[in-house]
Protein backbone atom coordinates (compact mmCIF):
# COMPACT_ATOMS: atom_id res chain seq x y z
CA UNK A 1 0.00 0.00 0.00
CA UNK A 2 1.30 3.40 -0.91
CA UNK A 3 2.67 5.39 1.99
CA UNK A 4 3.37 2.33 4.10
CA UNK A 5 6.74 0.70 4.42
CA UNK A 6 6.94 -2.32 2.10
CA UNK A 7 7.43 -5.59 3.92
CA UNK A 8 9.84 -7.03 1.40
CA UNK A 9 11.16 -5.95 -1.96
CA UNK A 10 9.35 -8.72 -3.82
CA UNK A 11 6.09 -7.74 -2.18
CA UNK A 12 6.65 -4.09 -3.06
CA UNK A 13 7.16 -4.92 -6.71
CA UNK A 14 4.35 -7.45 -7.07
CA UNK A 15 2.06 -4.95 -5.36
CA UNK A 16 2.99 -2.32 -7.91
CA UNK A 17 2.38 -4.74 -10.76
CA UNK A 18 -1.19 -5.41 -9.65
CA UNK A 19 -4.01 -3.87 -11.67
CA UNK A 20 -7.16 -2.40 -10.20
CA UNK A 21 -9.52 -4.92 -11.74
CA UNK A 22 -13.16 -5.83 -11.75
CA UNK A 23 -14.52 -9.19 -12.86
CA UNK A 24 -13.20 -12.69 -13.24
CA UNK A 25 -11.34 -14.70 -15.88
CA UNK A 26 -11.87 -13.57 -19.45
CA UNK A 27 -14.11 -10.69 -18.41
CA UNK A 28 -11.55 -9.04 -16.13
CA UNK A 29 -11.64 -5.29 -16.60
CA UNK A 30 -8.50 -3.31 -15.84
CA UNK A 31 -10.23 -0.16 -14.67
CA UNK A 32 -6.99 1.77 -14.12
CA UNK A 33 -5.74 1.08 -17.65
CA UNK A 34 -9.07 1.98 -19.24
CA UNK A 35 -9.52 5.12 -17.15
CA UNK A 36 -6.00 6.43 -17.79
CA UNK A 37 -6.01 5.68 -21.52
CA UNK A 38 -9.43 7.25 -22.12
CA UNK A 39 -8.50 10.25 -19.99
CA UNK A 40 -5.25 10.75 -21.89
CA UNK A 41 -7.03 10.29 -25.21
CA UNK A 42 -9.46 13.06 -24.27
CA UNK A 43 -6.58 15.23 -23.04
CA UNK A 44 -4.65 14.81 -26.29
CA UNK A 45 -7.74 15.66 -28.36
CA UNK A 46 -8.53 18.72 -26.21
CA UNK A 47 -4.96 19.99 -26.37
CA UNK A 48 -4.95 19.95 -30.16
CA UNK A 49 -8.53 21.18 -30.40
CA UNK A 50 -7.73 24.21 -28.26
CA UNK A 51 -4.86 25.05 -30.61
CA UNK A 52 -7.08 24.75 -33.67
CA UNK A 53 -9.82 26.95 -32.09
CA UNK A 54 -7.40 29.74 -31.39
CA UNK A 55 -5.41 29.39 -34.60
CA UNK A 56 -4.65 32.64 -36.37
CA UNK A 57 -2.99 33.36 -39.68
CA UNK A 58 -1.19 36.23 -37.96
CA UNK A 59 1.61 35.81 -35.45
CA UNK A 60 1.07 32.33 -33.91
CA UNK A 61 1.33 31.79 -30.17
CA UNK A 62 3.82 29.37 -28.70
CA UNK A 63 1.29 26.56 -28.37
CA UNK A 64 -0.01 26.98 -31.90
CA UNK A 65 3.53 26.97 -33.26
CA UNK A 66 4.30 23.76 -31.37
CA UNK A 67 1.14 22.02 -32.59
CA UNK A 68 1.85 23.12 -36.16
CA UNK A 69 5.35 21.68 -35.81
CA UNK A 70 4.05 18.31 -34.63
CA UNK A 71 1.35 18.15 -37.31
CA UNK A 72 3.82 19.05 -40.03
CA UNK A 73 6.36 16.51 -38.74
CA UNK A 74 3.80 13.67 -38.80
CA UNK A 75 2.41 14.78 -42.15
CA UNK A 76 5.91 14.70 -43.65
CA UNK A 77 6.47 11.19 -42.32
CA UNK A 78 3.25 10.06 -43.99
CA UNK A 79 4.03 11.91 -47.23
CA UNK A 80 7.41 10.20 -47.55
CA UNK A 81 6.09 6.63 -47.73
CA UNK A 82 2.35 6.76 -48.39
CA UNK A 83 1.52 8.01 -51.86
CA UNK A 84 -2.28 7.83 -52.01
CA UNK A 85 -4.81 10.25 -50.50
CA UNK A 86 -3.64 10.70 -46.92
CA UNK A 87 -6.68 12.46 -45.46
CA UNK A 88 -7.37 9.37 -43.31
CA UNK A 89 -3.90 8.05 -42.50
CA UNK A 90 -2.22 11.32 -41.50
CA UNK A 91 -4.72 12.20 -38.71
CA UNK A 92 -4.62 8.57 -37.56
CA UNK A 93 -0.81 8.68 -37.37
CA UNK A 94 -0.96 12.01 -35.52
CA UNK A 95 -3.35 10.78 -32.85
CA UNK A 96 -1.40 7.52 -32.44
CA UNK A 97 1.80 9.48 -31.92
CA UNK A 98 0.37 11.96 -29.42
CA UNK A 99 -1.73 9.42 -27.54
CA UNK A 100 1.02 6.81 -27.19
CA UNK A 101 3.46 9.53 -26.18
CA UNK A 102 1.15 10.79 -23.42
CA UNK A 103 0.42 7.27 -22.17
CA UNK A 104 4.13 6.47 -22.10
CA UNK A 105 4.88 9.76 -20.37
CA UNK A 106 2.87 8.59 -17.34
CA UNK A 107 5.97 6.52 -16.59
CA UNK A 108 7.75 9.71 -15.56
CA UNK A 109 5.35 10.43 -12.70
CA UNK A 110 6.77 9.63 -9.26
CA UNK A 111 6.26 5.93 -8.70
CA UNK A 112 4.13 6.06 -5.57
CA UNK A 113 2.19 9.23 -6.39
CA UNK A 114 -0.66 7.60 -8.40
CA UNK A 115 -1.09 4.95 -5.72
CA UNK A 116 -1.14 7.63 -3.03
CA UNK A 117 -3.88 9.55 -4.84
CA UNK A 118 -5.84 6.36 -5.56
CA UNK A 119 -5.63 5.30 -1.92
CA UNK A 120 -7.42 8.53 -0.97
CA UNK A 121 -10.40 7.07 -2.83
CA UNK A 122 -10.02 3.68 -1.16
CA UNK A 123 -8.37 2.00 -4.15
CA UNK A 124 -5.26 0.01 -3.27
CA UNK A 125 -3.98 -0.80 -6.75
CA UNK A 126 -3.41 1.73 -9.48
CA UNK A 127 -1.04 1.21 -12.40
CA UNK A 128 -0.72 4.51 -14.11
CA UNK A 129 1.01 3.55 -17.38
CA UNK A 130 -1.63 2.19 -19.77
CA UNK A 131 0.96 1.05 -22.32
CA UNK A 132 2.65 -1.17 -19.71
CA UNK A 133 -0.49 -3.31 -19.94
CA UNK A 134 -0.44 -5.76 -22.86
CA UNK A 135 -4.19 -5.27 -23.30
CA UNK A 136 -3.77 -1.65 -24.39
CA UNK A 137 -0.95 -2.30 -26.83
CA UNK A 138 -2.67 -5.31 -28.38
CA UNK A 139 -5.93 -3.37 -28.73
CA UNK A 140 -4.05 -0.64 -30.57
CA UNK A 141 -2.08 -2.98 -32.80
CA UNK A 142 -5.16 -5.02 -33.73
CA UNK A 143 -6.86 -1.76 -34.70
CA UNK A 144 -3.82 -1.03 -36.86
CA UNK A 145 -4.20 -4.50 -38.45
CA UNK A 146 -7.82 -3.67 -39.32
CA UNK A 147 -6.66 -0.40 -40.89
CA UNK A 148 -4.03 -2.31 -42.91
CA UNK A 149 -6.63 -4.80 -44.17
CA UNK A 150 -8.95 -1.88 -45.01
CA UNK A 151 -6.21 -0.28 -47.10
CA UNK A 152 -5.54 -3.60 -48.85
CA UNK A 153 -9.20 -3.83 -49.84
CA UNK A 154 -9.34 -0.19 -50.84
CA UNK A 155 -6.24 -0.27 -53.03
CA UNK A 156 -6.70 -3.67 -54.68
CA UNK A 157 -10.36 -4.56 -54.26
CA UNK A 158 -11.58 -7.85 -52.78
CA UNK A 159 -10.46 -9.81 -55.87
CA UNK A 160 -7.03 -8.25 -55.96
CA UNK A 161 -6.46 -8.81 -52.25
CA UNK A 162 -7.56 -12.46 -52.49
CA UNK A 163 -5.38 -12.91 -55.56
CA UNK A 164 -2.39 -11.50 -53.69
CA UNK A 165 -3.05 -13.70 -50.66
CA UNK A 166 -2.78 -16.92 -52.66
CA UNK A 167 -0.17 -15.97 -55.25
CA UNK A 168 2.11 -13.37 -53.66
CA UNK A 169 5.61 -14.61 -52.85
CA UNK A 170 6.09 -17.72 -54.99
CA UNK A 171 3.79 -17.47 -58.00
CA UNK A 172 0.39 -18.37 -59.41
CA UNK A 173 0.85 -22.15 -59.82
CA UNK A 174 -2.15 -23.82 -58.07
CA UNK A 175 0.26 -26.15 -56.23
CA UNK A 176 1.76 -23.10 -54.48
CA UNK A 177 -1.52 -21.57 -53.38
CA UNK A 178 -1.53 -23.11 -49.92
CA UNK A 179 2.11 -22.28 -49.00
CA UNK A 180 1.56 -18.74 -50.31
CA UNK A 181 -1.58 -18.34 -48.27
CA UNK A 182 0.02 -19.67 -45.08
CA UNK A 183 3.01 -17.37 -45.52
CA UNK A 184 0.81 -14.34 -46.09
CA UNK A 185 -1.31 -15.05 -43.04
CA UNK A 186 1.80 -15.41 -40.89
CA UNK A 187 3.12 -12.15 -42.27
CA UNK A 188 -0.18 -10.39 -41.61
CA UNK A 189 -0.49 -11.69 -38.05
CA UNK A 190 3.13 -11.09 -37.08
CA UNK A 191 2.65 -7.34 -37.62
CA UNK A 192 0.28 -6.63 -34.72
CA UNK A 193 2.11 -9.05 -32.42
CA UNK A 194 5.51 -7.43 -32.94
CA UNK A 195 4.00 -3.95 -32.79
CA UNK A 196 2.23 -4.61 -29.50
CA UNK A 197 5.04 -6.59 -27.86
CA UNK A 198 7.61 -3.92 -28.71
CA UNK A 199 5.69 -1.13 -27.01
CA UNK A 200 4.60 -3.30 -24.09
CA UNK A 201 8.07 -4.74 -23.48
CA UNK A 202 9.70 -1.33 -23.48
CA UNK A 203 7.22 0.25 -21.10
CA UNK A 204 7.03 -2.76 -18.79
CA UNK A 205 10.81 -3.02 -18.51
CA UNK A 206 11.09 0.73 -17.97
CA UNK A 207 8.49 0.66 -15.22
CA UNK A 208 10.23 -2.27 -13.52
CA UNK A 209 13.58 -0.51 -13.54
CA UNK A 210 11.92 2.49 -11.90
CA UNK A 211 10.57 0.15 -9.21
CA UNK A 212 13.99 -1.43 -8.65
CA UNK A 213 15.52 2.03 -8.27
CA UNK A 214 12.75 2.97 -5.83
CA UNK A 215 13.72 -0.03 -3.70
CA UNK A 216 17.08 1.61 -2.97
CA UNK A 217 15.46 4.37 -0.95
CA UNK A 218 13.04 1.98 0.72
CA UNK A 219 15.85 0.77 2.96
CA UNK A 220 15.89 4.20 4.65
CA UNK A 221 16.53 3.78 8.40
CA UNK A 222 17.46 7.22 9.65
CA UNK A 223 20.52 9.31 8.92
CA UNK A 224 23.10 6.55 8.85
CA UNK A 225 25.88 6.35 6.31
CA UNK A 226 24.49 3.40 4.32
CA UNK A 227 20.97 4.84 4.28
CA UNK A 228 22.22 8.15 2.98
CA UNK A 229 24.29 6.34 0.37
CA UNK A 230 21.36 4.33 -0.98
CA UNK A 231 19.15 7.43 -0.90
CA UNK A 232 21.71 9.33 -2.96
CA UNK A 233 21.93 6.31 -5.25
CA UNK A 234 18.18 6.37 -5.77
CA UNK A 235 18.14 10.06 -6.60
CA UNK A 236 21.06 9.84 -9.03
CA UNK A 237 19.99 6.62 -10.74
CA UNK A 238 16.35 7.65 -10.84
CA UNK A 239 17.26 10.94 -12.49
CA UNK A 240 19.55 9.22 -14.99
CA UNK A 241 16.97 6.59 -15.93
CA UNK A 242 14.20 9.18 -16.17
CA UNK A 243 16.27 11.28 -18.56
CA UNK A 244 17.08 8.22 -20.66
CA UNK A 245 13.42 7.24 -20.50
CA UNK A 246 12.36 10.54 -22.10
CA UNK A 247 14.22 9.32 -25.19
CA UNK A 248 12.62 5.86 -25.01
CA UNK A 249 9.02 7.02 -24.64
CA UNK A 250 9.33 9.43 -27.56
CA UNK A 251 11.11 6.83 -29.66
CA UNK A 252 8.51 4.14 -29.00
CA UNK A 253 5.62 6.49 -29.82
CA UNK A 254 7.46 7.49 -33.01
CA UNK A 255 8.11 3.86 -33.97
CA UNK A 256 4.50 2.84 -33.40
CA UNK A 257 3.42 5.68 -35.67
CA UNK A 258 6.00 5.05 -38.40
CA UNK A 259 5.28 1.33 -38.52
CA UNK A 260 1.55 2.02 -38.83
CA UNK A 261 2.31 4.22 -41.82
CA UNK A 262 4.76 1.74 -43.35
CA UNK A 263 2.38 -1.22 -42.97
CA UNK A 264 -0.45 0.79 -44.54
CA UNK A 265 1.83 1.87 -47.38
CA UNK A 266 2.92 -1.74 -47.95
CA UNK A 267 -0.72 -2.80 -48.09
CA UNK A 268 -1.52 -0.32 -50.83
CA UNK A 269 1.38 -1.26 -53.07
CA UNK A 270 0.74 -3.79 -55.81
CA UNK A 271 3.14 -6.68 -56.19
Amino acid at each position, binding site marked *: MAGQAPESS*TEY*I*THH*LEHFKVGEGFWTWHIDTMFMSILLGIVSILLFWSASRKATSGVPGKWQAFVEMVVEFVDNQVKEVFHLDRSFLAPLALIIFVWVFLMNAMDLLPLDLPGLIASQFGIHYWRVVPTADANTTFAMSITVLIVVIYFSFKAKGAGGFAHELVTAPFGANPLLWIPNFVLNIVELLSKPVSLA*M*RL*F*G*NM*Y*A*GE*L*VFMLIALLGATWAGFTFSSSLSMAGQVIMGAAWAIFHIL*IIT*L*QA*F*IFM*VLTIVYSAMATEAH
Partner: protein
Amino acid sequence: MEQYIAQIQSFTALGLGLIIGLGAIGACIGIGIMGSKFLEAAARQPELIPTLQGRMFLLVGLIDAAFLIGVALAMFFAFANPLLANFS
Protein backbone atom coordinates in the same frame (compact mmCIF):
# COMPACT_ATOMS: atom_id res chain seq x y z
CA MET B 1 9.87 -29.92 -1.43
CA GLU B 2 12.30 -27.16 -0.60
CA GLN B 3 15.00 -28.58 -2.81
CA TYR B 4 12.60 -28.54 -5.77
CA ILE B 5 11.85 -24.88 -5.14
CA ALA B 6 15.56 -24.16 -4.87
CA GLN B 7 16.19 -26.03 -8.11
CA ILE B 8 13.55 -24.02 -9.97
CA GLN B 9 14.90 -20.79 -8.52
CA SER B 10 18.48 -21.56 -9.50
CA PHE B 11 17.55 -22.53 -13.04
CA THR B 12 15.39 -19.43 -13.32
CA ALA B 13 18.32 -17.29 -12.16
CA LEU B 14 20.57 -18.87 -14.80
CA GLY B 15 17.89 -18.30 -17.40
CA LEU B 16 17.54 -14.66 -16.45
CA GLY B 17 21.26 -14.14 -16.89
CA LEU B 18 21.17 -15.77 -20.31
CA ILE B 19 18.11 -13.77 -21.44
CA ILE B 20 19.53 -10.41 -20.43
CA GLY B 21 23.17 -11.16 -21.32
CA LEU B 22 22.61 -12.61 -24.78
CA GLY B 23 20.04 -9.94 -25.56
CA ALA B 24 22.46 -7.23 -24.51
CA ILE B 25 25.22 -8.71 -26.68
CA GLY B 26 22.97 -8.74 -29.72
CA ALA B 27 21.54 -5.28 -29.20
CA CYS B 28 24.96 -3.73 -28.53
CA ILE B 29 26.58 -5.28 -31.60
CA GLY B 30 23.63 -4.23 -33.72
CA ILE B 31 23.60 -0.65 -32.50
CA GLY B 32 27.40 -0.48 -32.76
CA ILE B 33 27.39 -1.57 -36.40
CA MET B 34 24.57 0.79 -37.24
CA GLY B 35 26.15 3.72 -35.40
CA SER B 36 29.49 3.25 -37.13
CA LYS B 37 27.79 3.08 -40.53
CA PHE B 38 25.83 6.21 -39.69
CA LEU B 39 29.00 8.10 -38.77
CA GLU B 40 30.71 6.91 -41.95
CA ALA B 41 27.77 8.01 -44.06
CA ALA B 42 27.56 11.34 -42.21
CA ALA B 43 31.27 12.00 -42.78
CA ARG B 44 30.93 11.15 -46.47
CA GLN B 45 27.77 13.14 -47.12
CA PRO B 46 27.07 15.64 -44.31
CA GLU B 47 24.03 17.02 -46.16
CA LEU B 48 22.20 13.71 -45.56
CA ILE B 49 22.54 13.88 -41.76
CA PRO B 50 18.96 15.08 -41.01
CA THR B 51 17.38 12.29 -43.08
CA LEU B 52 19.71 9.61 -41.80
CA GLN B 53 19.34 10.68 -38.18
CA GLY B 54 15.60 10.04 -38.20
CA ARG B 55 16.11 6.61 -39.74
CA MET B 56 18.87 5.83 -37.27
CA PHE B 57 16.71 6.60 -34.25
CA LEU B 58 13.89 4.52 -35.71
CA LEU B 59 16.27 1.58 -36.06
CA VAL B 60 17.73 2.13 -32.58
CA GLY B 61 14.22 1.67 -31.23
CA LEU B 62 13.64 -1.42 -33.34
CA ILE B 63 16.93 -3.06 -32.35
CA ASP B 64 16.53 -2.12 -28.70
CA ALA B 65 12.99 -3.43 -28.55
CA ALA B 66 13.82 -7.14 -28.72
CA PHE B 67 16.35 -6.71 -25.92
CA LEU B 68 13.92 -4.75 -23.75
CA ILE B 69 11.17 -7.31 -24.28
CA GLY B 70 13.69 -9.86 -23.01
CA VAL B 71 14.49 -7.68 -19.99
CA ALA B 72 10.81 -7.26 -19.21
CA LEU B 73 10.27 -11.01 -19.42
CA ALA B 74 13.32 -11.65 -17.22
CA MET B 75 12.13 -9.13 -14.62
CA PHE B 76 8.72 -10.73 -14.62
CA PHE B 77 10.29 -14.12 -13.90
CA ALA B 78 12.53 -12.61 -11.25
CA PHE B 79 9.73 -11.11 -9.17
CA ALA B 80 6.66 -13.19 -9.89
CA ASN B 81 7.92 -16.54 -11.10
CA PRO B 82 4.96 -18.37 -12.64
CA LEU B 83 6.90 -21.64 -12.57
CA LEU B 84 6.81 -21.53 -8.76
CA ALA B 85 3.04 -21.04 -8.68
CA ASN B 86 2.44 -24.79 -8.28
CA PHE B 87 4.24 -24.79 -4.95
CA SER B 88 2.27 -22.09 -3.16
